[in-house]
């Protein structure tokens, strides 16, 4: 059955398709967007089949070329990465529908190049998620990073080139740190398989504690850069605001989330929670950094007048939520953190798509020029309103669900100050989204004729906006089924 090989196919499908795109483009350029959407849809099916297998028969261990782990490369899928894989490929699928018109306008004549790199990024991200091999993480991280640099650099403004260059430099340094961390771990354990590493690490730590500590430090810094945790977020606002619309939507909603997932994986599966709590105390540092990120990101977002830049700074603060949930070290907060990977992915994709839609129709980026958009682009504005409410955390949207879990987790950890941080940041969220509402709905603009974006751009926005609402309701029951074993895997409690 083809679904027996689904763990490998989620990576290989987009990878081979990336090579196929130029050939199809040579035959007929107009076919490419449909082809890419089809490929991402197939990947989505494979991802769902993976999670289904996990739910029915337990974790999947897929070996490459018949080499048994820990010698060969293993793709290991459990509840956590099965779930993240579906979230990521679903968003990419939605973005690929949206990208057709957007790319036609923003990158005329470069469809082939765009979609090739787009699929490479997809393959890299899926590889990062499903792999069970530490060195594979480095390789996939670089595949997806290189694709991301290339995609950012084709933004309209020439500043996009510098944004991409800065991202390239800081991203390569972070990947090098991760490579060093891998080397240190390999030095003391002699293995690269993640499950095997986890078994051998306690012994290695007893023998050579300094090497393991150095490795942990390298991983922490390396992944913090990739995630965009506050003091290391500097590449993010430029990269997200200057990239083409479809790319912003894809990168902001998937890349940092996948990096956050890998960070969780390395911290909790390889180094155990006990190691983090009692040996390095990294959770305290991370929690405070996350709190600072939440506040600072929101404050900086208020200061922006460029819509996309505001969303990028809001990403800085949302990453803070995910890391806060991870760093509080209890199951409830962890549920909040992981569910926020999905929630923020959906919300940020929708918001950047709205930004892209507005730029597509009117070319406006400045929030103060949004006057009357509520009249001229009613559906886009309505979708924006729903998603923005979710970002603020109004029940029963998804934003409320993750904030609720995070607040409960902070209370359980006895850290009331973080409850205050979450409250304060919700208020700040209202401030910066309110300016947009105000300009959209409370001013009358001349003209005022309905002038919406094409359906292939509108539909993805509406689907995601509806999902922020639906998933918030569903989070009560169906999601809990997946979340409980997922959290149990990373943080046995």
């Amino acid at each position, binding site marked *: 059955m083809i679904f027996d090989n689904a763990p490998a196919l989620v990576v290989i499908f987009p990878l081979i398709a990336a090579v196929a795109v130029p050939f199809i483009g040579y035959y007929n350029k107009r076919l490419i967007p449909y082809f890419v959407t089809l490929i991402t849809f197939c990947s989505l099916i494979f991802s769902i089949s993976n999670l289904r297998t996990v739910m029915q028969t337990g974790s999947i261990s897929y070996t490459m070329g018949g080499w048994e782990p820990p010698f060969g490369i293993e793709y290991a899928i459990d509840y956590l990465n099965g779930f993240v894989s579906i979230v990521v490929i679903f968003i990419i699928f939605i973005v690929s529908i949206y990208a057709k018109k957007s790319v036609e306008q923003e990158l005329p004549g470069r469809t082939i190049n765009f979609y090739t790199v787009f699929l490479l990024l997809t393959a890299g991200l899926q590889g990062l998620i499903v792999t069970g091999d530490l*060195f594979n993480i*480095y*390789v996939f991280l*670089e595949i997806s990073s*290189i694709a991301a*640099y*290339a995609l950012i*650099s084709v933004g309209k403004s*020439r*500043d996009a*080139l*510098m944004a*991409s*260059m800065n991202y*390239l*430099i800081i991203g*390569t*340094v972070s*990947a*090098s740190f991760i*490579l*060093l961390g891998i*080397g240190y771990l*390999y*030095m003391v354990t002699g293995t*690269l398989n993640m499950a095997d590493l986890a078994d051998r690490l306690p012994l290695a730590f007893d023998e050579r504690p300094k090497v393991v500590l150095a490795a942990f430090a390298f991983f922490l810094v390396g992944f913090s850069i990739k995630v965009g945790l506050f003091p290391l977020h500097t590449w993010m606002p430029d990269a997200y605001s200057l990239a083409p619309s479809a790319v912003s939507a894809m990168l902001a909603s998937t890349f940092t989330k996948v990096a956050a997932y890998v960070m969780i994986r390395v911290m909790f599966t390889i180094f155990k929670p006990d190691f983090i709590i009692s040996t390095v105390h990294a959770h305290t540092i991370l929690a405070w950094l996350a709190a600072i990120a939440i506040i600072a990101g929101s404050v900086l977002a208020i200061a922006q007048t460029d819509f996309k830049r505001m969303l990028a700074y809001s990403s800085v603060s949302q990453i803070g939520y995910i890391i806060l949930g991870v760093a509080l070290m209890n199951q409830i907060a962890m549920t909040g953190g992981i569910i926020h990977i999905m929630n923020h992915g959906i919300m940020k994709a929708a918001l950047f798509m709205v930004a892209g839609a507005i730029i597509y129709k009117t070319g406006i980026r400045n929030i103060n020029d949004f006057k009357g958009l509520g009249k001229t682009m009613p559906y886009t504005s309505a979708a924006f309103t729903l998603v923005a409410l979710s970002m603020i955390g109004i029940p029963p949207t998804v934003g409320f669900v993750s904030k609720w879990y995070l607040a409960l987790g902070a209370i359980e950890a006895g850290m009331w100050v973080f409850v205050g941080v979450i409250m304060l940041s919700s208020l700040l969220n209202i401030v910066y989204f309110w300016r947009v509402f105000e300009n959209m709905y409370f001013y009358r603009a001349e003209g005022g004729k309905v002038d919406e974006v094409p359906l292939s751009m509108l539909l993805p926005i509406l689907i995601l906006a509806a999902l922020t609402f639906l998933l918030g309701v569903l989070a009560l029951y169906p999601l809990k089924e997946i979340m409980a074993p997922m959290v149990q895997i990373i943080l046995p409690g």
Partner: protein
Amino acid sequence: MIEDLILAKYNYWIYVTLMMIGFYAVIAKNNLVKKVIGLNIFSTAIFLFYISIGDVIGGTEPIYIHGEDVVYVNPIPHVLILTGIVVSVSITAVALALIIKIYEEFGTIEEDQILELQS
């Protein structure tokens, strides 16, 4: 003391020194090409680190010799670094392509001048 700390571990000292040189170039140099060169030194230092951890004292090259009891060096770090080199080359290629585009658009590759042109 000194022999233990420096001479016996000279390979690690070389890698750390090289890495810091590369890191310095990445942070301090104004010229984008020099930054990319710094990145290359930085990653090459890590490759040297990997290659040196694969070494086994008295080991021979890892080609199986039939019927003889010999010590081999560990080939895995070397193989990993082959992949690492490929990655590094791709990064350099993308970076240089970007620099060419930056030069076409801004007319300079000095970072401070570009920042002035940007605002």
